[in-house]
């Protein structure tokens, strides 16, 4: 059998789908990674028999990322004929992405477009006829992906990558020049301050990586979580904003047991609206889970809308919630103003609030502009055309950073005989960025050296 030595992972359900998302891991490390990221009743995933599934949690240290079901498939009885683990988590992109990212951090590599299929073919899982189709798939997917990548790389971001690449290359060229040419030919002090220069580059690298966090907002939408006691009108708000019937609306408290995500655009800004199960103390098991998840969502959200029913008095439960709310990222919406108003506005603590009646379609415009303003203030949407980096870019940058850190560590040892090793690390670091910008290390390096130093006879 054709062996691949690395383990790949990706979200295999189409994005934006509600319901379940599936993250697939395939390759020799699949079980090892599963054991790392997935906690369940013993035995751990790798010790479980093939073709079984188990309920548990994807956990990063003590933090629950999501509850999920894990499927165990052992080589060669799997789609790729390799060891495969599939994690089914909650629908919507967010959970799946967080899980995937954790999996990648634990040693898998992001699968290329069509790579699972490709492995399936290479390992003889699918036949020759299907192979033709595979070629088409790989091709089509990559075309789309590269078109998207190009789009992303236009403007600011590409410039930022270029700067980073150039800065690193310059340091690398300085070091390489001392390796390939006698120092007599080179400017004096060329090896000075290299450490400082590398540290400052690393800072830029960090910053660029952090744009992934911001970037995903624009790509996937800023996440806005709607919470509040059951039956205050959360699902109705979601439906109204979407203009269609999506979440189940009912007058029985606690109907929305699962979170529901929807994409929409307000003022040109993509948003992901999350309608949660209500926030209240409940003894029902399933509902409890939903509520836990709501809390987790609120923590990750870019904005939080807390909804109150105007026809009900503000009780102790609401009051504690209001206290906990951060002013910057949250907005209080007082719904059902068409009913009798029992609200004591003093208890709102001067927090920003909007009064509305969804039934009468009042206050919607105000809500929309309020959402935009909040996002802007929170820095989520800066006014400049935004740098957006993709998951792939992020991974390459992380890889690049790892190598750079190694290089810096070696430099810190202050041993001149390690110079060649430092430069080898720098090279890997640069090559990873080159994979984003499509530049060839060697060509660029020599060009840089020869344009800056006068060397040779």
């Amino acid at each position, binding site marked *: 059998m*054709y062996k691949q030595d690395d383990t790949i992972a990706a979200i295999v359900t189409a994005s934006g789908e509600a319901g379940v998302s599936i993250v697939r891991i395939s390759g020799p490390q699949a079980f090892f990674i599963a054991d790392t990221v997935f906690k369940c009743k013993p035995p751990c995933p790798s010790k479980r028999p093939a073709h079984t599934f188990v309920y548990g949690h994807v956990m990063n240290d003590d933090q629950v990322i999501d509850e999920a079901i894990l499927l165990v498939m052992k080589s060669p009885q799997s789609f790729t004929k390799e060891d495969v683990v599939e994690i089914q988590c909650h629908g919507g992109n967010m959970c799946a992405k967080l899980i995937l990212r954790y999996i990648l951090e634990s040693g898998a590599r992001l699968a290329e477009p069509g790579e699972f299929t490709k492995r399936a*073919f290479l390992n003889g899982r699918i036949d020759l006829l299907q192979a033709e189709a595979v070629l088409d798939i790989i091709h089509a997917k*990559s075309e789309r992906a590269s078109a998207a990548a190009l789009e992303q790389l236009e403007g600011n971001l590409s410039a930022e990558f270029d700067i980073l690449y150039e800065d690193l290359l310059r340091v690398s060229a300085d070091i390489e020049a001392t390796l390939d040419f006698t120092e007599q030919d080179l400017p004096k002090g060329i090896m000075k301050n290299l450490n400082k220069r590398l540290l400052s580059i690393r800072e830029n690298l960090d910053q660029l990586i952090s744009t992934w966090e911001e970037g995903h907002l624009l790509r996937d939408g800023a996440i806005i979580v709607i919470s509040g006691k059951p039956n205050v009108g959360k699902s109705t708000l979601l439906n109204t904003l979407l203009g269609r019937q999506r979440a189940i609306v009912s007058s029985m408290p606690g109907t929305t047991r699962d979170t529901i995500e929807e994409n929409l655009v307000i003022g040109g800004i993509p948003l992901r609206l999350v309608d949660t199960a209500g926030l209240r103390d409940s003894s029902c098991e399933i509902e409890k889970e939903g509520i836990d998840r709501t809390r987790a969502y609120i923590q990750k959200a870019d904005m939080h809308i807390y909804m109150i029913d105007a026809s009900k008095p503000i009780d102790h439960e609401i009051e504690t919630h209001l206290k906990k709310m951060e002013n910057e990222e949250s907005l209080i919406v007082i719904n059902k103003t068409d009913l009798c108003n029992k609200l004591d506005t003093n208890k709102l603590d001067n927090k920003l609030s909007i009064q509305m009646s969804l039934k009468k379609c009042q206050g919607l415009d105000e809500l929309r502009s309020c959402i935009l303003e909040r996002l802007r203030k929170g820095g989520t949407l800066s006014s400049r055309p935004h740098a957006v980096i993709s998951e792939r870019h992020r991974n390459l940058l992380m890889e690049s950073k790892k190598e750079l850190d190694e290089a810096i560590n070696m430099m810190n040892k202050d041993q001149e005989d390690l110079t*060649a090793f430092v430069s*080898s690390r720098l090279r890997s670091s640069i090559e990873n960025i080159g994979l984003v910008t499509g530049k060839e290390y*060697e060509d660029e390096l020599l060009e840089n050296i020869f344009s800056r130093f006068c060397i*040779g006879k």
Partner: protein
Amino acid sequence: MINIYDVIVVGAGHAGYEASLAASRMGAKTALVTIERDAIGRMSCNPSIGGMAKSHIVCELDALGGEIARNTDYTGIQFRTLNTKKGPAVQAHRAQCDKSFFLERIQAVIACVENLDIIEALVSEIWIKNGTIRGVKTEDGEEILGKTLVIATGTFLRGLIHIGEKSFSGGRVDEKAAKKLSHSFLNLGFNLGRLKTGTPPRLHRDSIDFDRMVDQPGLNPPPFFSRSAKKDWEMFHVEQKLTPLKPWPPGSNQISCYLTHTTEKTHEIIEKNLKKSAMYAGKIEGIGVRYCPSIEDKIVKFRDKETHHVFVEPEGRDLVEIYPNGTSNSLPKDVQHEMIHSIPGLEHAEFLKPGYAIEYDYVDPTQLHHSLETKKIENLFLAGQINGTTGYEEAAGQGFVAGVNAVLKLRGEDPFSLNRTESYIGVLLDDLVTKGTDEPYRMFTSRAEHRLILRQDNARFRLVDYAKRIGIIKREEINDVENKIIQISEEVNRLKSIFCDGISEEKRLRRPGTFYKNLLNKKEGLNSEVITQVEINIKYQGYIDRERKNIIKAQKIEGQHIPNSINYDEIKGLRFEAREKLKKICPDNLGQASRISGVNPVDVSILSVWIKRIDSK
């Protein structure tokens, strides 16, 4: 009876002598055809061998059975090691040779070898009949018959020499160019390109004021490239018999080189006369080397640099010619004089030969296999500067590979092809045939992605299996390498197992500034070559292991062979550019395919699926 050679080598530069020696030593009946018998092994430019990255090639050739390392060591007049502090991977030897003894010795070697005839002639045509090589035809209308052909004609193809406003035909100064041979290549459908290089003037030793320059003596003990000279050095005290093969005890009586620099005046003179420079007057179309800039280039492109080094190097022990390294130019003679005289110590320098630039044809090397056989014509091999490289070492490396492969081809064996993960020669071959070149190609350590492993100190150890297969190196030498490989690993293990004050000797050796000789439990009488390897393997173990892993990774994709029968037009999904490039280069494996410019990772994965498909049919 008609005389048919197994191998005909055309051209007796560094590529040519290595090719013909390798072929004849492997037992093939070989002819070395060259324009001028006395010019065999001539060094066109500075008689210096080695230097960064080039030194690695020379050591590799010594490990495989080439001649250039020995020839350098036995005729060297100054030996140095460069980059001593930057770690073992980038350390390099450099030797200044005696120009006339270098060529005398190589000619003596050729005379000693059986099966090797020298034919003095100017080849004008590659002779092909019914699509197969018959041999070559010479300008005098003679025919030389051969089964395989190695062409190593250097800078001679339509060579055009420029000195200031004058230009004339020549392969090197005072030597004929090869005009018709270029047409022969064109007629056979090869793509040719044009490159340029240049050389400084030669000055008379006695007219130079060395007191005004910095003395650069050679190193003692001399850092040799070859095993053979190292062995001789070990018996230095024994009286050695001097022969043409050993003009003096190697490394003895070294001569200094000197260092001076250009001045403001030099720069003024050049600026003022730029229009008269052949290069700057736009007369030369060939592309020059970025890394061997002419002095005009240096001054125009680096205006803010106030002064440039000039290395003043003797061309021989008893020769009066001095090579002012760093002053290569294509200025008219009178300007050259004025310019040279503005350099400290050269105020009264007397000119023996002016500097000049030369333009010549080269064959686009992407038309070659890794074995250096052309893809178009079976049994035709090209080696040396004709393939777009520059430098003696690069030429010698290719010559050796082509010579060996010509013989293997006749024997019907698989070609000898070095991988870029295991040698600099491999990097050279792969770069040439995969990427081609549009400027004279020179080796740098940065071209070798695995240079931490490809060191000059371990060349013999890395390449021993190839040396065995080629079979030129003596059995006892091979045994020596194999024994040492065992000794090295035994000693490393021993040091791991001996503890002293709670830490192992291995750990102790790892400390910066600690060497084998400092160890309490060192093994007396251990061979110095073994000690070096033990030290490097232990001190840099972590780094080296990591590199090994990278190599293994790289070899996986290199190991995925692309069948010759592949038809790129049939493969759905390849982009147009990738398809065309793949058709042109015909890569041997997926690794090589991925290095072709214009072939992206998706193309490679499509290709890998397709190959699998062919395999499973």
